[in-house]
């Protein structure tokens, strides 16, 4: 069993597991941090940006986490754990010869589709007249300034995919429900478990009858909107692959949420605007819910909240229809029937408005001061770029970062100098190191595999030994392009004994509570399922009248004799011999046992602890009798 690690990003993993002749890709996250190397793509022509000297960006690019470690066309299935971890899917499934199936839950598919749609839309609505690729040449890259010079593997950076590729990729998705058991080629069984991180997010169990691998990715134990994490099903794993821990181990999500609200209120009261760069699904639902409760008490009742994204409406609508995937409280609301998320009410009361982009209705209805939620959190593309240009110059305004994926200083770099206030409240609800060590203690996996980043404290806080995984036995770390041999020894496989054969077996007790039976059977293997059938009886040989040479037919080897075990006790054996009329026995003691001389029959029997030797000439009936007498004392296996 092998694990190929194609991504070094601990929260955007991409691993390939080879297990029992199946090749399973676990997630395909898209690391978009490389866009920070590019200038923002403005929606409205910006004189400032275009006047910047020198290297102007022409590529909308993303860093694709894959290498030629293995042939992508050999992948049988891809398991998706949450919508953030599927953004590279079109790169994997299109143009690589991939012919397999992708498994994901329904919310993951629907929201993943929205996020991809949004990304494509952001890229396509600012078409570029020209695109540069020559700079990717190593020689030229060396001469480039700044961080671009040091960026690694720029040749793997690719252009964004198209909507057509997204649709084609998503058509390969097969929907699954939590705890659904899916058989892959009869060899392994996969099953998604609730991971508590986002709508439809899952951890995966990959198991056969005797081996179990758990894949934990992006899980949360906090009470937010999704169904709570299923921890108990992770028990008894041979290997647990651990990815997607919090990127902000020192930031408490609740505290950050409080800070978010107070900063927001402060800015609004002072007459400024608040910009929240965020993804269109996920934490935004919690932010809106928090604001719903906060608005009245902070007397923000008249402040307009805008959510601008090409998929804003869809994201808000979709969040309301996945009752099955929500936490218990929200499910109960649906039974009433009421929408599970309070943003329905915010929309109904016109407190929250959503627009596909800044163009159209928004420009006429837009009132200040206001709060705007919009993407993309990298500040490099999407409507957020426009608001940065618009509001950046005033110190009344505030930008509040809530997404932990990008360094906020890097994100802001091209907008400097900036008068606007910046607040950094990253909200990452994924497991922290304390929670994960408690979890691992609970579920007791035999081995843990994790990105190497988790095995040492963060570089900036080298003394914080609590910000790393400390386990016994130590976890097996991986980095990008590692190939790990998982410490697995498969020893057993499931086989089914058909009823007819099962009924014919004769068990005998060999030790208290342990019985054995010898089995002779025909093995049938089909679709990785094995069954044992009775040996068909050979067709009766037509009786040949001409010659009676039965004896000269050599025996057909059908059932070899079983192995024997035990010892023949001298006294009891002698008594048995006597019963069978063999009385003249001379017993001679030897180093290892005894030799019995049957004088009348001129036969020797050598009895030893681990063997019996019968020397008998010319008396087949006697020999067989003796054989059967000896066998009485032995166990057959």
């Amino acid at each position, binding site marked *: 069993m092998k694990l190929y690690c194609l991504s070094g990003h601990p929260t955007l993993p991409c691993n390939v597991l080879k297990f029992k002749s199946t090749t399973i890709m676990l997630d395909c996250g898209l690391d978009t941090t490389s866009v920070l190397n590019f200038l923002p793509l403005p929606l409205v022509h910006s004189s400032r940006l275009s006047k910047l000297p020198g290297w102007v960006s022409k590529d909308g690019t993303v860093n694709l986490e894959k290498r030629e470690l293995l042939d992508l066309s050999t992948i049988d299935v891809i398991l998706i754990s949450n919508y953030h971890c599927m953004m590279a899917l079109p790169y994997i499934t299109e143009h690589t010869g991939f012919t397999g199936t992708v498994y994901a839950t329904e919310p993951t598919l629907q929201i993943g589709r929205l996020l991809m749609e949004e990304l494509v839309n952001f890229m396509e609505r600012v078409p570029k007249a020209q695109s540069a690729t020559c700079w990717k040449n190593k020689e030229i890259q060396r001469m480039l300034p700044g961080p671009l010079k040091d960026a690694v593997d720029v040749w793997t950076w690719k252009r964004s995919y198209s909507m057509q590729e997204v649709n084609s990729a998503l058509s390969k998705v097969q929907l*699954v*429900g*939590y*705890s*659904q058991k899916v058989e892959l080629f009869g060899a392994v069984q996969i099953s998604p478990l609730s991971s508590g991180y986002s709508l439809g997010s899952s951890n995966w169990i990959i198991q056969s009858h005797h081996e179990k691998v758990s894949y934990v990715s992006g899980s949360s134990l906090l009470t937010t909107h999704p169904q709570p994490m299923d921890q108990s099903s992770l028990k008894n794993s041979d290997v647990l692959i651990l990815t997607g821990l919090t990127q902000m181990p020192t930031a408490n999500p609740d505290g950050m949420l409080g800070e978010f609200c107070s900063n927001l209120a402060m800015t609004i009261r002072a007459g400024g605007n608040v910009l929240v760069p965020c993804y269109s699904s996920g934490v935004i639902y919690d932010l809106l819910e928090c604001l719903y409760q906060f608005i009245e008490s902070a007397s923000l009742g008249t402040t307009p909240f805008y959510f601008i994204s090409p998929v804003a*409406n869809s994201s808000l*609508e979709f969040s309301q*229809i996945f*009752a*099955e995937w929500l936490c218990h409280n929200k*499910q109960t609301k*649906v*039974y009433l*029937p009421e929408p599970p998320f309070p943003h329905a009410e915010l929309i109904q009361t016109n407190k929250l408005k959503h627009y596909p982009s800044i163009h159209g209705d928004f420009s006429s209805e837009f009132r200040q001061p206001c709060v705007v939620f919009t993407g993309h959190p990298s500040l490099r593309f999407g409507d957020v770029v426009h608001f940065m240009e618009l509001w950046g110059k005033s110190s009344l305004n505030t930008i509040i970062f809530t997404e932990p994926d990008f360094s906020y200083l890097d994100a802001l770099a091209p907008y400097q100098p900036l008068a606007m206030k910046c607040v950094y409240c990253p909200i990452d609800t994924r497991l922290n190191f304390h929670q994960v060590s408690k979890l691992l203690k609970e579920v007791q996996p035999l081995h843990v595999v994790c990105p190497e980043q988790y095995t040492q404290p963060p570089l900036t806080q080298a003394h914080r030994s609590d910000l790393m995984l400390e386990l016994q036995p130590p976890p097996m770390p991986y980095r990008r392009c590692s190939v790990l041999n998982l410490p697995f020894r*498969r020893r*057993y*496989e*499931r*086989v*089914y004994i058909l*009823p007819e054969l*099962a009924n014919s077996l004769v*068990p005998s007790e*060999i030790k208290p509570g*342990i*019985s*054995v*039976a*010898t*089995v*002779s*059977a*025909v*093995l049938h293997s089909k679709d990785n399922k094995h*069954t*044992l059938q009775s*040996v068909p009886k050979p067709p009766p040989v037509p009786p040949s009248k001409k010659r009676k040479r039965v004896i*000269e037919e*050599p*025996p057909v*080897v*059908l059932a*070899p004799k079983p*192995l*024997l*075990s035990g*010892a023949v006790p001298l006294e009891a054996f002698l008594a048995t011999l006597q019963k069978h009329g063999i009385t003249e026995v001379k017993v001679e003691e030897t180093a290892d046992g005894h030799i019995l001389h049957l004088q009348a029959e001129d036969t020797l029997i050598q009895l030893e602890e*681990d*063997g*019996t*030797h*019968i020397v*008998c*000439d*010319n008396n087949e009936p006697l*020999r*067989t009798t003796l*054989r059967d007498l000896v*066998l009485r004392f032995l166990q057959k*296996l």
Partner: protein
Amino acid sequence: MPEIKVTPLGAGQDVGRSCILVSIGGKNIMLDCGMHMGYNDDRRFPDFSYITQNGRLTDFLDCLIISHFHLDHCGALPYMSEMVGYDGPIYMTHPTKAICPILLEDFRKITVDKKGETNFFTSQMIKDCMKKVIPLNLHQTVQVDDELEIKAYYAGHVLGAAMVHIKVGSESVVYTGDYNMTPDRHLGAAWIDKCRPDILISESTYATTIRDSKRCRERDFLKKVHESIERGGKVLIPVFALGRAQELCILLETFWERMNLKAPIYFSTGLTEKANHYYKLFITWTNQKIRKTFVQRNMFEFKHIKAFDRSYADNPGPMVVFATPGMLHAGQSLQIFKKWAGNEKNMVIMPGYCVQGTIGHKILNGQRKLEMEGRATLDVKLQVEYMSFSAHADAKGIMQLIRMAEPRNMVLVHGEAVKMEFLKGKIEQEFSIDCYMPANGETVTVTTNPSVPVDISLNLLKREMALGGPLPDPKKPRTMHGTLIMKENSLKLVSSEQALKELGLNEHQLRFTCRVQLQDPHSDPDTLHRIYTHLKSVLKGYTIQHLPDGTVMVESIVIKVSSSAEDPNTKVLLLSWSYQDEDLGSFLSTLLKKGLPSGLC
């Protein structure tokens, strides 16, 4: 031999109060717990005394599964759990869990408040009973306990309807509840994978009907409504608040829009708005088309359909009214019916099945004079139309499901005996499987023949598969040998050698040595060689070696030759073999005793 038992307490050769007991692998499961619309006495509920005469049912049942929210499938639930007594798990899907208590409360109100019955379950009992419900997701495998697992499949029929696959070890049963094999305007079609259950328990409401295409029926329906409206008549459509009603609303809404009609459409009871809301929130349970477009246009937001008020019934002019309940046995639909029955311009369209004993059933059978309470009679002058919109599988659909699931046995419930008889014959003929149709209280017993799962050592399996070659030879099956170790609950199949090792036993070697005298006037090596040649010719397919140390080996049997001291022509052959070669050893010693044939060189 393991057995599976199926006993209907209700819905055996009947429609109504569905309640089926299944015993499988030592587990007892109750499927559905419904009431009968045709009765107002004890026969309304299933006869739980069949399970136990006194005391609670908790000790006798491992779980209860409700297939969907129709009262003939869940109407006895509070009675069973709170009045008879059951505290075990109750499973149903999310939409069923949401809607079921509302219908139960409705049912309770009609029975207790309107008819004044006592000794009936209370609102609190409905609440308490719903607390015992564990929601099921589609395709989720739920482990009821260590051995019993259940899995729900989409059944169409109504919002949240499910079929269940019940599995204990390698035995399994599928219960369909009510299902629909053709997608309609708001729901998808039932689907199940090839799970090959030992028994498939299917409803058979439309066992003998093969319905024409849905489109035709819709056109007919719209035509009839339209004609009646045109001539100024009023149209009453008795429905249950959830289910068919939404489908017909979508149908009329689009028709009104297209034809630009002005006549009002009303929907009775306050449930409408709420009901439509359920459909919006559980949109993932509707059909593909509605799900795909719901962000742009939610099909359950109706422009033309308004809430009904009792006073509207006397308004002049044409109108269409959807009123509950669907079988005209009580409530608002019955009141409106009484008002409108006298006018031949009016029309009542029955869009679903009506249980015997209800007014719906009577008028559908052509009865034009109805006896009402208090000896009054009602002349039925309005037109009565029947439009089968209830989403049950027809004969074709049932056969299709059998093809999907490939069961080994079939049990028919939820249908009329005569119709079942017909379908039973058809199933037995087409699939050559046994088909049963037990009456209430009658038990069907099916013996199963499960295979025994065993853990085989991978070494043994791999060795066997390598030797067996890529393709099995049907004429010469390869036999594998091993030892099955039975320890506590584990069954392991290993090679005999490994078994010895694992059990910590010593091998005991049993050897035989046999001297055979032979007249053969040759030198010792020549004799040996002659024996070698002889055996070669006799024993085909055995390994025979002539070793340089002066022995012949047949498999693992050693043969040595020495001359007798007295007579050099008398040779003494020494044969030595272990017990594992007993058959061959015995054969060889007998063979060699007879001497060597003269023709050998």
